[in-house]
């Protein structure tokens, strides 16, 4: 039997549906309905309106990965379905594939997007905002979403075209290392922002800029406290109450 090919319209539908992956996120099976919803245009092209019961069962099971990586998983899963339907035996079947990749890909996405791109884009936005630019939110959105939206699309096509080899391609990109580089850049920008605010504060109160350096150990102390698990809420209350007390006393 010849392998069924999916049309570009199907891919477009899957791409758009990927934005709804977590609409019914639940504690029981996490993204199970969402993943089936995402796959549905593809499954319909493969099986027609009567999707076999075993296919329905296996693609509506417990599933959880990073939302931006889900199109890649869906691409490969659909390709494995069409391959096995055409009588080829892929090294890993579609159900096992999903189970194997969801956790490691989630780790990759958390590190890259939540830990890497998002804080970096936010810091750039904040630096602009601290200069009084109203474009800051727009710049933040563009910086974050350029890689985000591209990644969803490329992931879907890559996952479908290269099936299991897509993971090898991903490995060659060394995304976890890229995430570390992004986090280091974020750390540098945090330093720049803190210095800028300290300097402006001194300028405003007509103090010598040397006083700005006093902020350095304080920020480090607070960072250490945050690392040890002290909540932001507590740090905010501590700062506010001490500053208000100072203002009331002097």
């Amino acid at each position, binding site marked *: 039997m010849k392998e069924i090919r999916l049309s570009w319209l199907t891919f477009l539908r899957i791409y758009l549906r990927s934005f709804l992956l977590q609409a019914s996120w639940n504690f029981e099976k996490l993204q199970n309905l969402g993943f089936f919803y995402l796959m549905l245009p593809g499954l319909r092209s493969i099986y027609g309106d009567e999707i076999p019961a075993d296919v329905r069962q296996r693609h509506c099971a417990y599933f959880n990965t990073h939302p931006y990586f889900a199109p890649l998983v869906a691409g490969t899963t659909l390709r494995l379905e069409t391959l096995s339907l055409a009588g080829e035996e892929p090294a890993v079947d579609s159900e096992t594939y999903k189970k194997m990749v969801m*956790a490691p*890909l989630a780790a990759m996405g958390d590190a890259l997007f939540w830990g890497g791109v998002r804080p970096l884009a936010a810091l750039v936005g904040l630096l602009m905002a601290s200069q009084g630019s109203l474009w800051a939110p727009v710049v933040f959105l563009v910086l974050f979403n350029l890689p985000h939206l591209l990644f969803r699309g490329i992931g879907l096509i890559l996952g479908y075209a290269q099936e299991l080899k897509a993971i090898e391609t991903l490995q060659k990109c060394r995304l976890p290392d890229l*995430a570390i580089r992004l986090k280091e850049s974020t750390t540098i920008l945090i330093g720049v922002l803190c210095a800028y605010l300290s300097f402006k504060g001194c300028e405003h109160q007509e103090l010598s800029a040397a006083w700005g350096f006093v902020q350095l150990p304080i920020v480090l102390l607070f960072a250490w406290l945050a690392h040890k698990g002290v909540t932001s809420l507590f740090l905010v209350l501590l700062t506010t109450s001490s500053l208000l007390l100072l203002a009331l006393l002097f």
Partner: protein
Amino acid sequence: MSIVLARIDSRLVHGQVLEAWVPFVNADCIVVANDEVAGTSFQCMVMQAAIPSSIKLIIGTLEETASILRSADLLKKRVLLLFTSSEDALKVCQLGVSYPKLNLGNMHSSAGKDRYTCTIALDQHDIDMLKQVEGQGVTIVSQCVPADREQNWHKLIRSGGR
């Protein structure tokens, strides 16, 4: 070699382990002890792809784990040891790998298991296995991420499952 964290986690290498535990315990090597994973080259590749190059990943069968941990490569490493089940944790323990504390992270619910916390589901078999691990002098605690409170597993069992 020192084992800085031994953990049962059915998701093995994922966000909680890499983003939360690795920096918290300052680990530079992750050892996955699992027969099934070690036998599937595809899954080994996926896990390798998720880990930054500054951290060493070794995947071995339960039998191999003891000798891996004794090898010269790991002499100066701070190891994070991962299992998927209570049975594997016990087997590795009996093979002569000693870890002072066993962390229960994610143990997925399935038919016949009772849920004790949001992330931990156990059946009688699990409890028997864990009791034997404890018999080897290991303290067993549940703690999903470092930000959560660490809780002795006896407290968990006493509070009952559902």
